[in-house]
């Protein structure tokens, strides 16, 4: 019973991270219909920058702030330089280009900071079944998620962003600067992604540290429906808890395969995800 409780609580805090990174993916997908495979790499570079800043200044929170800002800028740069030129090309093109960016950024991280694991601090005390750090992780993710949802649903900016995503030509004729909206979307998503990176990384930072998390985040996003932020957040938490049980009872090495199995089963039964809206094609 004790183990079950531990696993559940551990799963909730892990799930918060999947939810956050999944949310980053969904924001971009809704805005540009692109799955940003480079998201973990953008978060990785931000986290490495946080590491350097923290090491240099001794302040975790300064590093935290730098990471978020750096992540936003990286997201904006990626959208304008790599994604914008490909907006009329096939889906495959943007998948490949973001994969290329993933490879480059991971390699660059290894070049600058070496492939060796570096100690990366937790935000708060992390000892215990459900530590202060775990609470922080869950709270900050919920707060940020709520903020993002409020922005999208209730602000004029959010309305413009949604219009730009759903019907870009129509939005243009209504005075919406669609390109700017896409860039803002990527910036927002990258900021959320960087947050997820900072939360997921401790205790050790190395170039492949976010690979597993990314797979789970993508699974959460797909389960929730790639254009459903609320579903993704719920999916992240549920997946976190579920995978925690798998890790506890079947061994941590089986977790990724379990995630894959869950992904396949859910998508076979509901190809647009649990809460996604399938777009029927008119023939």
């Amino acid at each position: 019973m004790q183990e079950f409780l531990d696993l559940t609580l551990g799963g909730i805090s892990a799930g918060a991270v999947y939810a956050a990174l999944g949310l980053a993916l969904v924001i971009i997908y809704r805005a540009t219909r692109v799955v940003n495979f480079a998201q973990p790499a953008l978060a990785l570079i931000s986290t490495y920058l946080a590491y350097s800043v923290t090491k240099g200044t001794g302040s975790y929170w300064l590093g935290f702030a730098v990471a978020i800002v750096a992540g936003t800028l990286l997201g904006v740069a990626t959208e304008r330089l790599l994604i914008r030129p490909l907006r009329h090309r096939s889906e495959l093109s943007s998948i490949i280009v973001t994969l290329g960016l993933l490879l480059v950024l991971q390699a660059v991280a290894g070049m600058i900071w070496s492939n060796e694991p570096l100690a990366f601090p937790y935000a708060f005390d992390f000892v215990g079944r459900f530590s202060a750090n775990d609470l922080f992780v869950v709270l900050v993710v919920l707060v940020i998620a709520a903020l993002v949802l409020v922005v999208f649903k209730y602000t004029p900016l959010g309305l413009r962003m949604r219009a730009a995503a759903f019907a870009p030509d129509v939005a243009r004729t209504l005075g919406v600067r669609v390109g700017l909206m896409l860039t803002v979307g990527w910036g927002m998503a990258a900021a959320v992604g960087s947050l997820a990176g900072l939360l997921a990384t401790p205790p050790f930072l190395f170039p492949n540290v976010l690979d597993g998390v990314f797979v789970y985040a993508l699974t959460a996003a797909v389960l929730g429906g790639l254009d459903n932020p609320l579903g993704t957040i719920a999916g992240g938490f549920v997946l976190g808890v579920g995978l925690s049980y798998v890790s506890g009872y079947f061994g941590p090495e089986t977790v990724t395969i379990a995630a894959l199995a869950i992904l396949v089963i859910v998508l076979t039964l509901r190809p647009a995800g649990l809460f996604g809206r399938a777009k029927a094609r008119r023939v």
Partner: protein
Amino acid sequence: MLEIEGLSVAYGAVRALDGVGLTVDRGGITAVLGANGAGKTTLLRTISGLQPAREGRITWDGKELTGRAPDRIARAGVAHVPEGGGVITELTVDENLRLGALWRRDRADRAAAKREVYELFPPLEERSAKFAATLSGGERQMLAIGRALMSRPELLLLDEPSLGLAPLITARIMRILRDLRASTGLTVVLVEQNAHSALSIADNGYVLALGRVVAVDTAAELLADDGLRHAYLGF
């Protein structure tokens, strides 16, 4: 006034518009007619900036529109209602309307505009919180026009507003356009296949065929010209 000179537009090798010229005085209602594929939709899309022109000039009120981005043209007072209305089905009726005026600074004016649109089209007010996807064809057209009016445009481009609509609703929309012209000096360019209803409220008409202007005249003359009607307008 709207002035178009020597406009040519091509999709790859296909010439959609070939040397088209058009003039509409302020406060005028002009119908653009012709069969399918004549280039009517391309003309409107080029004016609103969605389609780049290969040659030619478009000016509104002396301001150059050619080559400008669509959102800048919209902010210059040009509203475009595409074929089918172009309502964003994933947004509610209210959101669609609000979207129409977001670029205007004056909040009070935006709220006033929304009230006026609801007054013009009461069914929209009833459904204001519903998703646009749930609206019927006629209601969507009303929403599209209402949304266009939200920005208090000076030039309104309408692409086949009567398509798929019951004659009663079409007549109502035409009446509303005429009233708006009278009250606000709105300039309207109206593309229609249903030439009869368009010519009933228009001052002038242009007839397009295969990307070229084949006839220009007052609405009354076009209605009276049997030969022209048979050849290009299908009635």
